[in-house]
């Protein structure tokens, strides 16, 4: 895939110490949020926003770095959700903090699924890859609906939930779990971006055949990125299932979840570290608000589609690369004058 629209601009725009202070401030704000605004309506929005920060960041590891656009990541989200749900039901786990310990297992299950799907899907490229990932997502949805004895089918699957957590505290544990996963995703994404592995992924994005020719093990690298991305998405799906306590095949293997993380990464800036975060913070609260206000009339879909089209037509490279370019140009101008 010739990614000539993809950003080559570095994501670090500010200066070192200033950036550190800013990041520290953001981290403290994120940690203190449930104490500052403890009402469930606010923390609910916070849980979903942080969830999408994690999802968009995880998707970006595959879609942004290698340029392989997967529209089927909801397959791993749903697999993680059902994985955790079934473990909780069959292992008789006492609800409380114990289920969170099983979240990495849900991630591992999604990673195993990703090895299988990736092995087949990554034989194809570009457009075909996009379609094959969509096909796998629907395959998983069909399986969840049809294997009634295992999953409960279209009737959904109920998860145990803690009766001790009530009132303002109910959302808090889930918020921190989502936050932890988002930070883990960001750390992995940052680490990959700096590593030789990450350099190989970017080379695949720019010209896969040349990358192979200069000795990048493209197959192994692509599959590794796909599996890492899927594992993170699967863990987030697990926490989601425990949070909403009742899951249905069409709402976890949901094409809209798959496209949302892609849109957020695109809005912020593909292949950047901060892009998916910015995209999620801008879009998810707006999406929740619109779904809440206009949900019954389905008009929120029209709104979502309009934002989507505007972003792609006006900012095809995303906010972060466009802003960085603007800053660089301004800086260049000051040097000249």
């Amino acid at each position, binding site marked *: *895939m*010739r*990614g*000539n*629209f*993809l950003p080559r601009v570095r994501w670090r725009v500010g200066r070192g110490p200033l950036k550190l202070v800013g990041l520290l401030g953001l981290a403290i704000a994120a940690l203190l949020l449930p104490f500052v605004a403890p009402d469930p309506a606010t923390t609910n929005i916070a849980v979903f926003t942080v969830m999408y920060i994690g999802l968009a960041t995880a998707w970006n590891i595959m879609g942004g770095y290698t*340029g392989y*656009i997967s*529209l089927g990541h909801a397959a791993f989200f749903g697999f993680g959700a059902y994985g955790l749900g079934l473990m909780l039901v069959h292992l008789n786990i006492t609800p409380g903090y114990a289920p969170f310990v099983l979240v990495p297992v849900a991630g591992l299950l999604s990673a195993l699924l990703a090895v299988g799907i990736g092995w*087949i899907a990554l*034989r*194809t*490229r*570009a*457009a*075909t890859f*996009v*379609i*094959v990932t*969509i*096909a796998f997502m*629907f*395959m998983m949805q*069909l*399986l969840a*609906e*049809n294997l009634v004895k295992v999953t409960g089918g279209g009737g959904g699957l109920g998860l145990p939930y803690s009766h001790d957590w009530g009132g303002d505290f109910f959302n808090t544990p889930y918020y921190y779990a989502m936050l932890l996963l988002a930070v883990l995703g960001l750390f992995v994404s940052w680490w990959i971006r700096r590593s030789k592995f990450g350099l190989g992924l970017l080379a695949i994005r720019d010209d*896969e*055949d040349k990358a192979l020719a200069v000795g990048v093990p493209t197959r192994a690298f692509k599959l590794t990125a796909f599996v890492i991305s899927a594992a993170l998405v699967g863990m987030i799906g697990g926490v989601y299932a425990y949070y909403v306590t009742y899951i249905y095949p069409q709402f976890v293997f949901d*094409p809209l979840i798959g*496209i949302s993380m*892609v*849109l957020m990464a*695109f809005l912020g800036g593909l292949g950047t570290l901060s892009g998916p975060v910015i995209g999620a913070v801008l879009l998810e609260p707006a999406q929740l608000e619109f779904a809440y206000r206009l949900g019954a*009339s*389905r*008009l*929120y*879909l*029209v*709104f*979502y*589609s*309009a934002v*989507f*089209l505007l972003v*792609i*037509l006006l900012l*095809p490279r995303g906010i972060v690369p466009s802003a960085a370019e603007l800053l660089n140009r301004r800086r260049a101008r000051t040097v000249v004058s």
Partner: protein
Amino acid sequence: MTLVLEAAALGILTGGVYALMASGLTLIFGVMRIINVGQGALVILGAYLSFAFFRSWHLDPLLTLVITMPLMFGLGVILQIVFIRPLKTDREALSVLVTYALALGIEGALGYVFTTNYVQLRAWYETASFAVFGFHITYVYVFGFLLCIAILGALFLVLYRTSFGGALRATMLNRTAAQLIGVDVDRVSAIAFGIGVATAAAGGVVFGITNAFNPGSHYDLISRLLTIIVLGGLGSLRGAIIAALIMLVTEDITAVVISPVWATFVFFVILVVVLIFRPQGLFGVRVRDRI
């Protein structure tokens, strides 16, 4: 055994409809190198347009095509000019997102206008049937199949017997070279997109008579159409038609032999097996950087 044969016959008849819808999709890919994820939503839009005429003027659903196909052709040309033409770089990836957004917009607008309740187009041939060698075949499937054959035939005539078809095939083969010898590729692209959307209108009517649908029906439809064109090989009309027949025959036979809930799943399994051995699909050509 007769059940299986009847299922196979039904599969071929309904496969014609899917062949028509998928051929529009693969034509658009061939000319523009873009995947129109909105094709499913456009099919549903076509079905709703016919439904609107059917409801207010009591027109026969198949007759409404005289109005809806030109309408949808115009819509396709406009969509191409407004949303697809501005994409200059990395069209394949961006076009998927743009057309997905269009699909969501159409779904939302249809939901607002027609609500999310299921509706179906009604006609006398919807349930009336006749017997051939002991099989009962409903008229609608035969009419739908004949309609699809007629439209596909017209499409092939345009592609292989007119100078516009020559320009279109030249654009499919090599866009830059076509431009160099004087083909107005922008115009060809807009018209090809219009044709693709017009086939969605025709497919929509037959789909709307044989299925109850609501604005969300496009997800199921587009996943099937996309897998059909991948199985056939992206950009191959022949491949799309054959893959559509394979899909519907497999589904209908599975529904009889195993269970209806596994019908689509079996087709996905066939797709996966084919992709392991032929990543470019049945009739696709393996081009560097493009598979």
